[in-house]
């Protein structure tokens, strides 16, 4: 038995994650004021979801236009808990007094428990993705069909949230949280702690996805993207391979959404609808959909650009975002990562290209 050597890219991956950890845990808290650090935390939440999109879209070829659904499931679960924390034992969330005559639906009750909430955040997005993904992928729904269905999913979810005002706060969403698992949300040191938790979640997300990318599974996923039939004749069902990526992506989106709530202090349907979902893809496309760090870099860059432009030139953000989609996808489909790879003159190890001339369908 001879070992297969770790490719040089593996050391690059480990080094990259370490560098990012140093930047997030040491440099950023020292360099940024409280407000900017909070903003960065928000971008990191998007980045967590973006890492999953990179896996599903970049490597798996599934154009996931509805990740807002999973982001929202995580976010609303967290928001339910925080509202109940604020309401106190046996208390009813303030907005229900306004919209629902102070009556709380029974299914809200378990969210008083922090452990239950965390379990929901960890399980429900993945479970929902598992069911939907199984139904859709097993029937070989793919390409444009998959994209449109996933987008409709997010749209339907947002509409449902708006309609169920008595339990979700409707289009105003849920806000006005005071504590996060007992920690006062207004204290600066607690804000830093929440930022650190978010950064830690992102690092964990990157490690999970990096391991997947370096595994045989990761190779099969790319193979399933480029040549489904060939994978079938390696003895694998491509639907199962894609399903794993879809579920992991949903899980990560749920985590990002859950952290979004204490970080930003509000969650509304417009944070999770079809538009918000597709906006998540902008960063992934910019950074490089198939590259490990591409989605993270892209999501942070987009988040920063959005804040900067909206602050200085209101209205210009739509043009910028639109132009970004057009220019990046049209001219630089590999994103910034492909520029980087070209500069280093090394083959981007992000693409396990499969030569496929003719495989009978």
């Amino acid at each position, binding site marked *: 038995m001879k*070992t*297969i050597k770790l490719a040089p890219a593996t050391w690059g991956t480990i080094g990259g994650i370490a560098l990012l950890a140093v930047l997030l845990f040491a440099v950023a808290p020292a360099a940024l004021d409280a407000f900017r650090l909070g903003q960065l935390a928000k971008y990191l939440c998007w980045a967590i979801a973006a890492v999953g999109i990179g896996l599903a879209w970049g490597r798996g070829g599934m154009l996931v236009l509805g990740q807002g659904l999973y982001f929202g499931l995580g976010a609303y679960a967290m928001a339910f808990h925080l509202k109940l924390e604020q309401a106190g034992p046996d208390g009813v969330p303030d907005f229900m007094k306004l919209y629902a005559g102070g009556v709380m639906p029974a299914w809200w009750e378990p969210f008083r428990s922090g452990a239950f909430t965390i379990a929901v955040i960890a399980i429900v997005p993945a479970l929902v993705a598992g069911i939907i993904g199984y139904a859709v992928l097993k029937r070989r729904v793919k390409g444009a069909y998959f994209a449109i269905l996933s987008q409709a999913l997010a749209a339907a979810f947002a509409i449902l949230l708006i309609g169920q005002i008595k339990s979700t706060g409707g289009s105003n969403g849920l806000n006005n949280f005071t504590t996060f698992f007992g920690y006062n949300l207004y204290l600066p040191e607690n804000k830093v702690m929440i930022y650190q938790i978010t950064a830690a979640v992102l690092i964990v997300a990157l490690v999970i996805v990096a391991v997947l990318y370096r595994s045989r599974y990761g*190779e099969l996923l790319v193979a399933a993207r480029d040549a489904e039939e060939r994978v079938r004749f390696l003895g694998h*069902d491509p639907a199962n391979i894609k399903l794993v990526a879809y579920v992991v992506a949903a899980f990560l989106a749920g985590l990002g959404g859950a952290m979004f709530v204490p970080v930003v202090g509000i969650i509304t349907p417009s944070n999770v609808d079809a538009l918000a979902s597709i906006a998540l893809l902008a960063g992934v496309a910019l950074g490089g959909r198939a590259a490990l760090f591409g989605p993270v870099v892209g999501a942070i860059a987009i988040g920063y650009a959005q804040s900067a432009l909206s602050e200085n030139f209101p209205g210009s953000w739509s043009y910028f975002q639109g132009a970004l989609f057009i220019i990046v996808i049209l001219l630089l489909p590999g994103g910034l990562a492909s520029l980087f790879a070209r500069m280093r003159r090394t083959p981007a190890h992000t693409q396990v*290209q499969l030569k*496929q001339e*003719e495989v009978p369908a």
Partner: protein
Amino acid sequence: MTSTEHDEAAPGRLTVRGLTVEFDGFRAIDGVDLMLLPGQLHFLIGPNGAGKTTLVDAVTGLVKAQGTATYEGHDLLTTKSHRIVRLGVGRTFQTATVFEELSVLQNLDIAGGVHRSAWRMILPRGAAPTYVEEALEAIGLADLRDRPAGSLAHGQKQWLEIGMLLVQDAKVMLLDEPVAGMSAEEREETGALLRRIGGERTIVVIEHDMDFVREYADWVTVMHAGKVLTAGSVAQVQADEQVQEVYLGRTADAVLHEDDTAAAAEGSEI
């Protein structure tokens, strides 16, 4: 031996009976019977459009078919492609499809997925299992183990694909024109490779190159217009009048005894 002759559940036994494939009313395969015995090198020949590839497609779950096709008693026609592979029936396509940016070794390794649990699929690779090393030796690419598969010569890619079937532990190998486009030496090596790995396996080769067929076939099945015209040893098939009639303008004799040099130059397509 005779007792297992008709036992469809016998190890390695692939049986096809009355297989019919229809595309919009057109019968691409029309009632084909095949019995493939382990340890033999079967060749499937016939003019273009005879239904050779469609037959392989039907047996491997790529197209819907009527009739029966069983492997060790398992019904192949109702089994999904990837399950058929896991039963032990593997195939290649007319054009080699290998993972270009992975090394030769990694290509072989990834084909071993059928032996792995799902959990081990997501762990980073450690060492190459022994069966991968063995396959590497068998296909003669040991010296090129760390080369990206994309840099291999055409013939070497075909061997790599056969190696991937070895790693998959395919008991039945259905090879669609493996020597097409190969040089004379490469063909020879491929033939030797097929002989070497034949052993207890059933190998079915779709082929146009008659020299290759003559040299290596234990059993030849001739297809024409979706039907089996005849089957037998090379000599038997050559003597068959029907076979001669099928190739209009040229007698079967001429086809099967073409001048060796001309055949090598033209790749002698029927």
